[in-house]
């Protein structure tokens, strides 16, 4: 529980359905001195979550995950940027913290399930012939605009069998209304989009303070390999970015790719951007194994990206090649490519350097 509307309503719904509910809150890491800026677990939100738990008459425990969060999520974030990719720490957090550390704590308490306020759904098809349970399917949340299956694609069957997503069946508006109906004193803060540990700053400011090694200037090249400027460090640019390059040119230039070997930023006009294929590694298949043959799917290359049609070809060593029908301009190494067939999330993997 975070004190926010989604996890609070999730708890209220489960309580109403007759579950024996225990509220747990993760205390996550913040930069020393900036604890009050954390977007999900300040002492304020903890006291709010506590009040909600009291209103629901359920026990509530704060679990300190600051150290493990720092060692896994923040470390991976800094390492990723140092290596020149654009990491997505929410994926690491979901796999290692929420559905690793917290799930283990919940199971140790004797819980059967770990419920969160994610907008996603689960479906378990029972095979009547064999009596065996088929793999749990991960579905998009009913509210497509709020769907969070993208960050949950990292979960395995063991985790999914222990998962409950009570608000996934509703729209955000319905969830807000339920919070009012349950008379929950939830925070009226905006949805958290940015990384919790960045607080009020930007990721660039965070990196400058915590990973000074990323401040490594290098050349800006055009697609013919000519030096046309200097960048501040590859970490401070994202694929598809236009502003802040500091180059005067006849037509607008965009970041096309990062050449790590040469510490160079390659820029190009809009027409030359984009790629029709990507390679993803560390692929997690929700059903537990790779499909035997190439398949058609809609693929999301960022949390908020529009799904794009593609053919996905499974490769050895948990990798895939994705061939898009149309070129995409912002395929970003370090982000995840997540595959969907309709509302079903099949899995996803980390986009590799081309």
């Amino acid at each position, binding site marked *: 529980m975070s004190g926010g509307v989604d996890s609070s309503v999730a708890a209220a719904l489960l309580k109403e359905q007759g579950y*024996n509910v*225990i509220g747990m809150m993760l*205390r996550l890491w913040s930069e020393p001195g900036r604890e009050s800026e954390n977007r999900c677990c300040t*002492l304020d939100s*903890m006291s709010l979550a*506590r009040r909600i738990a009291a209103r629901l008459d359920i*026990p509530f*425990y*704060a*679990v*300190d995950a*600051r*150290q*493990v969060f720092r060692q*896994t999520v923040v470390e991976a974030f800094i390492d990723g940027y140092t290596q020149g990719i654009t990491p997505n720490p929410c994926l690491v957090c979901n*796999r*290692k913290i929420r*559905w*690793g*550390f917290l*799930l*283990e*704590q919940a199971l*140790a*308490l*004797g819980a059967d399930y770990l419920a969160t306020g994610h907008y996603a759904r689960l479906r378990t098809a029972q095979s009547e012939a064999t009596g065996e349970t088929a793999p749990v399917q991960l579905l998009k949340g009913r509210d497509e605009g709020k769907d969070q299956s993208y960050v949950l694609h990292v979960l*395995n069957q*063991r*985790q999914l069998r222990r998962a409950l997503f009570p608000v996934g069946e509703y729209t955000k508006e319905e969830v807000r209304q339920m919070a009012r109906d349950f008379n929950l004193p939830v925070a009226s803060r905006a949805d958290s989009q940015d990384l919790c540990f960045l607080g009020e700053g930007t990721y660039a400011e965070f990196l400058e303070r915590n990973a000074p090694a990323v401040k490594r200037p290098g050349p800006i090249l055009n697609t013919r390999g000519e030096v046309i400027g200097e960048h501040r460090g590859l970490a401070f640019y994202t694929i598809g970015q236009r502003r802040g390059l500091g180059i005067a040119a006849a037509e607008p230039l965009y970041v096309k790719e990062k050449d790590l070997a040469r510490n160079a930023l390659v820029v190009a006009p809009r027409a030359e951007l984009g790629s029709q294929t990507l390679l993803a590694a560390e692929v997690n298949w929700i059903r537990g194994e790779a499909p035997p043959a190439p398949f058609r799917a809609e693929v999301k290359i960022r949390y908020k990206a529009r799904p794009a049609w593609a053919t996905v070809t499974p490769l050895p060593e948990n990798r895939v090649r994705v061939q898009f029908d149309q070129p995409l301009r912002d395929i970003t190494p370090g982000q995840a490519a997540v595959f969907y067939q309709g509302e079903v999330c099949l899995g996803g993997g980390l986009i590799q350097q081309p």
Partner: protein
Amino acid sequence: MTTDRIYLDYSASTPVDGRVLEAMLPYFQQHFGNPSSIHRFGQRAEGAVESSREQMAAALNCQPHEIVFTSCGSESDNLALRGAALAARQQRGANHILISPVEHHAVARTAEQLAEVFGFEVERLPVDEYGRVSPQEVARRLRPDTAVVSIIHANNEIGTLNPIAEIGALCRQRGIPLHTDAVQSGAHFPLDVAALNVDLLSLGAHKFYGPKGVGALYVREGTPLLPTQTGGSQELGRRAGTQNVPYIVGMATAFALVQQEHAERAAHERALRDRIIGRVLEEIPAARLTGHPEERLPNHASFVFRGVDGNQLLILLDAAGFACSSGSACKTGNPEPSEVLTAIGLPRAWALGSLRVTVGKDTRPEEVERFLDALPELVEKARLHNGEHGESP
């Protein structure tokens, strides 16, 4: 979730005794007057406050005017330390404060503020492995410019008793006021302030079956004390604000009951405490008792378990229906080892796994047995789990 929960956290708080509640009730609606008013309503309330003061004074072996009513033990600590330090500076230019490293935060944080904001020099005494202050160490550190000495009577986390009477005698020889936080010990022992040689002594009612939100400070006659809450002249000008009449009545009633019943309560609690200490040390590997084995609160058993996540142990215990504590009431899940456990020299791997079990006058032996039956497995669970934060298999 178990519905018949077992409460083993009497050092955190106690239920209000039925006799106490009954004594309080007339002062909410019937005798509601302001004790400072001239009329009969006020006189009735004032009478209740002053009778309570007499009751407290009789129990502590002091004069009624030496009792100041406050809102809690922490306020008493604050008033004692800040009030005595500032008065000593005003009157004799004193600048030195001597405290133990095992003080309650109400004393320790107040001393830190006096250092940071008011420029006092705060010196911390050494303690032995049980958390005890030696009178000789106090004697060596007393200076002409020492404003106040504050040594906790019985530590809340580890239950150890300090030799306050000896320390008090040394302070008195040199004319330095001694404060003691007796919030824990006041619930278990008859306290004679004359025998203890203290000048200031703090109490909080909810530790001895009185209500929360009321405390007392003994201020020996002649002890310089600058009020920290100013306003009306209540409490002889030492603490402004309309007295909390029903709660003061409740505290005095509860404290009188401690005096009458302490021997039987302590005998009952000591037997349970010794049973807890015996079985835990016998049945749980890598377990140590913290605090002094004999010179400790009769209801207080405290341990550390090596390699255990103390916060997780408390959560596991609560989920199993047992309410305990790690030593002080903190719910934010802070994994830093406590200052007290660090002060007695415990390494981090031990200090993080602390558990405090405190029984009360109504604790039943079978409750203790059920707790002791469940504890070993939960300790191992919290021990195994600790450090296994990797990916799920």
